[in-house]
């Protein structure tokens, strides 16, 4: 018994507005993209006959194929870096910090930037990475190099550096949650069964946090794949990933091309999520 009756009509009606909103703004538009990507001709018309020509054109261009490859490589790099970094930070905050006050302070320092604009945080990297940027000034002051290194701003390295700072939180968050939900007795039980600390980690703690790792990796994957803003801010026009190609086509009013790339992006993401769910069955482990 509660303030809502199980399977009552009321529960249906309460769900309707949210469901309609999500269907109308998320599901239908994404399905529309697939449809538009199959339009032939040049006019923006729903009467256009359907064809695979747009895809054929996309795959005929080796630059685009390479772009998919480099997007995947870039995303995988970020997943690896943020995954390791995020796990270490989560483990430190939950397991190693004993004082509740310090834990709270460090935790806040870690998550507060999440509540500020990602765009502004990406822009904040610009004065760091430039030829006269803070990093180069520091390197030259310390004497590591005589002349500034141009490899930071407008480079893949710079994009990676900025994105690591933006997305490590996403990789660490679910791990923090999973670590917190492990009863301390499990660790103790393993120790009384003659498991040394590293073995306890390898056999008990890590497997139990694996769903958190996977969820974090999925979040980083989805965000990096579609993050055209950071790439545009730091990479300038010199570097592009798949999502920037969508923007490029869109800004030059090539709706079909943009749709094709968007669908390709969507496919990559679907594959990624499905693979992740294969690696770890989240539902089964959560039980």
């Amino acid at each position, binding site marked *: 018994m509660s303030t809502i*009756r*199980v399977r009552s009509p009321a529960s249906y009606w309460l769900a309707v*507005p949210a469901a309609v909103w999500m269907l109308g703004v998320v599901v239908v*538009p994404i399905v529309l993209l697939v449809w538009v990507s199959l339009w032939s001709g040049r006019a923006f018309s729903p009467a256009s006959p359907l064809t695979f020509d747009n895809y054929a054109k996309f795959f005929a261009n080796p630059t685009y194929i390479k772009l998919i490859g480099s997007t995947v490589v870039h995303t995988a790099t970020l997943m690896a870096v943020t995954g390791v970094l995020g796990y*270490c930070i989560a*483990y*430190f905050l939950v397991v190693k910090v004993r004082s509740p006050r310090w834990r709270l302070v460090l935790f806040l320092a870690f998550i507060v930037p999440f509540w500020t604009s*990602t765009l502004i945080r990406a*822009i904040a990297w610009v004065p760091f990475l430039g030829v006269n940027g803070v990093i180069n000034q520091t390197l030259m002051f310390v004497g590591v190099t005589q002349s500034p290194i141009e490899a930071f701003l407008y480079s893949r390295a710079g994009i990676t550096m900025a994105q690591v700072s933006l997305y490590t939180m996403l990789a660490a968050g679910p791990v923090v949650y999973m670590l917190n939900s492990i009863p301390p007795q499990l660790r103790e039980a393993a120790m009384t069964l003659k498991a040394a600390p590293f073995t306890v980690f390898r056999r008990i703690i890590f497997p139990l946090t694996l769903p958190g790792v996977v969820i974090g990796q999925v979040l980083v994957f989805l965000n990096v794949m579609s993050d055209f803003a950071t790439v545009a801010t730091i990479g300038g026009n010199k570097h592009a990933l798949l999502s920037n190609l969508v923007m490029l086509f869109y800004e030059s009013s090539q709706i079909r091309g943009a749709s094709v790339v968007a669908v390709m992006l969507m496919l990559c993401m679907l594959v990624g999520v499905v693979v992740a769910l294969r690696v770890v069955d989240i539902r089964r482990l959560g039980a």
Partner: protein
Amino acid sequence: MRALDYRTRSRITAWVLGALTLAFLAYQWLPIFTLGVLSFAGPTGGTTFPMNGTSFHWYQELWRATVMNDFKPPLLRSTLLALACSATTVVLSVMAAQAMRGQFRGHGWFFYLLLLGIMAPGILVGFGFAIMMRLLGVELSWDTTTFLTHVSWTLPFGFLTMLAIFNRFDKKLEEAALTLGASRIVAFRRVTFPLILPGVIGAGLFGFSLSYDEFPRSMFTTGPDMTLPLAVMAQLDRQLTPEIYAVGTATTFFSLFAVTMCTFAFWAMRRQVQGRNS
């Protein structure tokens, strides 16, 4: 040679991980601080060090700005939009979470539908929605189309927050109210709602903050009147000046202020609720 004592090893691990964590925190915060510092550069200061003196020059520029780089109207739009999103998110996510408790047929699908709103990237949602509006012949505008896409992004976060709150909610309290003769609606208003109020604030904060900072969805669905992130990006494309740093610093402070206020309200609310319990 004897292997290291396990205590020493544990301590070394803690130090290494701690150093890594602190290094990352510095890495994460330094650019934000630098942005803040550089926004106070002198009138002749560039976009990096040296600052050529300190001044409020760039903030004054911001205030006096002309049509081209005037951030005041976008700021007003973004704030109004964020407030509207916040209110809508609160109402819809409480309704949706309450509906989930009713376990209607298909509530599993409903859950995944809302989850999709978090998973689906803004670039796809924004682009697809823009095409849909074009097909329907609806004109794009920050207060209609942008509002619709923003809520589709903020709503799932509010919904998950409310679900988490309801998960820890003690159903017996409602049962007590119902056995004391309250109708379902009265019980919800008098017992349930006050107890879930901290979650409501959390949902509202998600609604405000995510909408205020949203870029990709706005990118495709906002008409000629830009929101703040769009205006910042446009200015960045035109020219990089410390003025952008000033805007960035100001909005970051604004965000942090909003978060602090909400956290404080959340905390006060929880204390009040717990005080009533004990």
